[in-house]
């Protein structure tokens, strides 16, 4: 009899049998999983059963989720999406470089470089305040309108420049916040070793700052991937424009749904990855 309580003591069996706490927590976990499953299934069921009962469902389905139109247009959309990928691929590095340059302009402290600093401030204020579409129109139609010869008036060149102008303002701000986030003691340590201001920035501050802002910049680049579609306003037939063409040819909105699916296939993993990086960073900091 006297041995029973001893045997129940969890310390006696650390590895083989679960402790009382573990048994309890496993029970709680099972129960919450069950509730989550039931509520998810019932919401999905409600959507799947109730929405098609709506009187206009058949028309909506025909206009937005039309299998025939989807099959006919999806390959063309994929092909057009390649242009989005290309525009993104050459814009992103340019944005990263010019964003960094502008962030450094804003961070200059030497009085002789004050004009540079003023430029950095004005630049980020102006381009973060302007709608992207407006910049694309002004730069994409305006600059070539000054009389540039082909191929230098291409909407691809100037449309890309518009994206670079706007997005480097955002990237510059993010990088600057990263620079500000590096503790003064790091600069002190570098200075105490006799490093120059430029070397301190290049070897000590920037590498840490940029690492800190990778997740925030990931989000910006996901937004960029969507805004590449705005280049269609000045001519390039990327996926959004191609979907619009199909829409008007078929009098049907399904091509937009197809385009959305293609976008999501890219942006959802990218967003998840950015969140993962962000969480990892938050964990590392705490």
């Amino acid at each position, binding site marked *: 009899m006297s041995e029973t309580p001893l045997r129940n003591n969890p310390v006696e069996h650390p590895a083989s049998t679960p402790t009382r706490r573990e048994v309890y927590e496993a029970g709680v976990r099972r129960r919450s999983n069950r509730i989550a499953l039931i509520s998810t299934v019932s919401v999905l069921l409600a959507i799947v059963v109730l929405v098609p009962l709506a009187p*206009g469902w058949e*028309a*909506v389905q*025909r*206009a*937005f989720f039309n299998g025939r139109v989807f099959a006919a247009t999806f390959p063309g959309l994929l092909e057009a999406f390649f242009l989005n990928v290309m525009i993104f691929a050459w814009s992103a590095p340019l944005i990263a470089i010019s964003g960094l340059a502008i962030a450094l302009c804003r961070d200059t402290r030497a009085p002789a470089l004050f004009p540079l600093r003023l430029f950095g401030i004005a630049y980020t204020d102006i381009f973060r305040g302007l709608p992207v579409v407006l910049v694309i*129109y002004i730069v*994409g*139609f*305006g600059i*070539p*309108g000054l*009389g*540039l*010869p*082909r191929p230098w*008036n*291409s*909407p691809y060149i100037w449309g890309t420049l518009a994206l670079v102008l706007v997005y480097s303002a955002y990237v510059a701000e993010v990088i600057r916040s990263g620079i500000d986030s590096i503790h003064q003691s790091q600069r002190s340590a570098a200075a105490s070793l006799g490093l120059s201001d430029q070397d301190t920035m290049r070897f000590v501050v920037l590498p840490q700052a940029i690492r800190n802002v990778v997740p925030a910049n990931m989000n910006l680049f996901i937004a960029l991937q969507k805004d590449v579609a705005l280049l*269609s*306003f*000045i*001519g*390039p*037939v990327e996926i959004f*424009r191609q979907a*619009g*063409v199909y*829409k*008007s*040819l*078929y*009098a*049907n*909105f399904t091509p937009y749904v197809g385009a959305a699916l293609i976008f999501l296939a890219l942006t959802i993993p990218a967003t998840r990855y950015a969140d993962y990086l962000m969480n990892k960073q938050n964990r590392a900091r705490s």
Partner: protein
Amino acid sequence: MKLISGTALALFFSTTSVLAAGDGTCAKGKTLTEGTLTIATGNPAYYPWVMNDAPESGEGFEAAVAYAIADKMGFSQDKVTWVRTSFDEAIQPGAKNFDINMQQYSITPEREEMVDFSLPYYTSAMAVLTTQNVVDSGAEATLDGLKALKWGAVATTTAIPMLSDVIQPSDAPLLYNDNADVNAAIMAGQIDAALYDLPTALYLSAVVVENGALLGQFPPGQSESPDQFGILMEDGKLLKECVDAAISELTESGELAAIEAQWLSKATGVPVIE
């Protein structure tokens, strides 16, 4: 095939219901507001289809045709109301705010799967809008000459299948939201030419595009599927037979041709592209 049988069917209905349409009872109970015909046009509506963006005046080709059709259907001038819609609003599912929608919609078999079109009220040639500079630099109105040009078009028009099927330019065409953007691209030298229906091309070259010119036209008879404008209606609405009857009547009596002669400039002098 579908288009032809559809047209044949429509013709059948129209001939049998001429009398019904003529006495103005065909549309009874089939309009949004009883006793009134609600007609949609674009926002804005463009010359020469509607003059001064004021369809109520009955001036401009489509405005005049609209009132003539309404009259045949038994709606007097004061029983017609106008609304504005975009193309997207015209094709969206659900209740519509118009009975008939008229803004140079080209009839295509794909579109007919989704919405109803009336019989055509106008058959358009496609024309090549460009600038005098391009013409002077030696652009030719031949298929080979056209292939070499840098092309643009408004993305929502049937000019696009025409471009890709007939002209097949060597560089992928650039597409735009509206006439204003096409004009901006021409001004910026980013495109040499744009493809439009002939009346719009004539208007743009004369009024909008600086130094504008027409390089040539593809007359409707020459094309395999000529660009025909129809009135758009909600799919399955019974109004189609009344509208078709009215249009057939106008066509047969020559009234339609007279309206066309009054509002659309003759395309004489625009070279034909072989």
